[in-house]
């Protein structure tokens, strides 16, 4: 039987303090998988550390932000015929052993996307109040319009199968924040999304991309606006899927 190819896609921006630990953890706990770091034009030594650890590193020529870095990795996976992509953060929040659980769920079920969820079970993850409110709001919107419960639509910890890799790699309008909006779009298109409860750590070093006051407000406005358009858009039929 053909061995399935799995790729960890790690977008990284100024993560010199965290990246080595993350890479070592994946090498130790998921040694069967390949790792790709997409260095989003970091100003620190992220690239040097990745290369020193003999891990594949793609350098974006200029800073394209988180989502485009993820899509670069997905495009690489599509080009190199990977069967599964695991989106993994470079800040040390995601746990490699938990990623294996996502992968097992993707392999054993009919799920196209498996989301690592912090909120299905009490995993001890303490998230800021503003983020928790946002997550709850998007959970309600998804339940209302897609008739499915997704407890953590803002989780970037996901395992994608080949069909999704194919679709994301060809999306010309891949969103700047691929969160609840993308979940809704994929559910509307007929893809199967499942959640697996996972543990996550709190970020140890560096700054979150949703920090401050203005950024979360901008994020929420853009997200709601995009969701409105996805909801008024006619459902897109998925090729080769019922």
């Amino acid at each position: 039987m053909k061995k399935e190819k799995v790729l960890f896609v790690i977008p990284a921006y100024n993560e010199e303090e965290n990246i080595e630990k993350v890479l070592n953890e994946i090498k130790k706990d998921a040694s069967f998988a390949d790792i790709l770091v997409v260095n989003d034009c970091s100003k620190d030594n992220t690239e040097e550390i990745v290369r020193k650890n003999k891990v594949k590193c793609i350098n974006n020529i200029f800073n394209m932000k988180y989502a485009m870095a993820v899509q670069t990795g997905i495009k690489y996976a599509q080009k190199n015929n990977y069967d599964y992509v695991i989106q993994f953060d470079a800040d040390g929040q995601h746990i490699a052993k938990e990623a294996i659980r996502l992968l097992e769920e993707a392999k054993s079920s009919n799920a196209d996307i498996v989301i690592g969820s912090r909120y299905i079970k009490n995993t001890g993850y303490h998230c800021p109040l503003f983020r928790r409110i946002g997550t709850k709001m998007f959970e309600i919107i998804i339940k209302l319009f897609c008739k499915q419960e997704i407890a953590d639509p803002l989780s970037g910890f996901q395992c994608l199968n080949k069909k999704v890799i194919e679709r994301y790699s060809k999306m010309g309008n891949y969103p700047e924040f691929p969160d609840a909006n993308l979940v809704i779009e994929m559910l509307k298109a007929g893809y199967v999304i499942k959640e697996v409860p996972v543990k996550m750590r709190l970020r140890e070093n560096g700054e979150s991309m949703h920090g401050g006051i203005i950024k979360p407000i901008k994020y929420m406005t853009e997200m709601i606006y995009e969701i409105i358009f996805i909801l008024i858009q006619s459902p897109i039929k998925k090729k080769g899927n019922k």
Partner: protein
Amino acid sequence: MKKIYFIIIALFVFFYIITEVRKKKFSVKESFWWVVASLIMVFLSFFPYSIDKLAKVFHVEYGPSLLFVFGIVFLTFINFKNSKKIAEQQEKIIELAQQVAILKEETK
């Protein structure tokens, strides 16, 4: 009667923008301020005297001149945003072109 013309024009602008976004000819993100502007147009076409009330708040004697001010401010804002974006993209294109040139030389 005039009011109906304005309502028709405003609704046409609003639905035109929405349709372009739905057809993916206009990006969702870029459409935001145009949708906001068209919604204001729709509101003003239904309640034209609201501009006079707003003018009083700003101590402007002639209501429509406030409308012109808002229009100019909005267009200047969009223009500035676009100029900024063009400058950013120009930088990125130069960077890309230089990298392609270097790669071409290296792979010769």
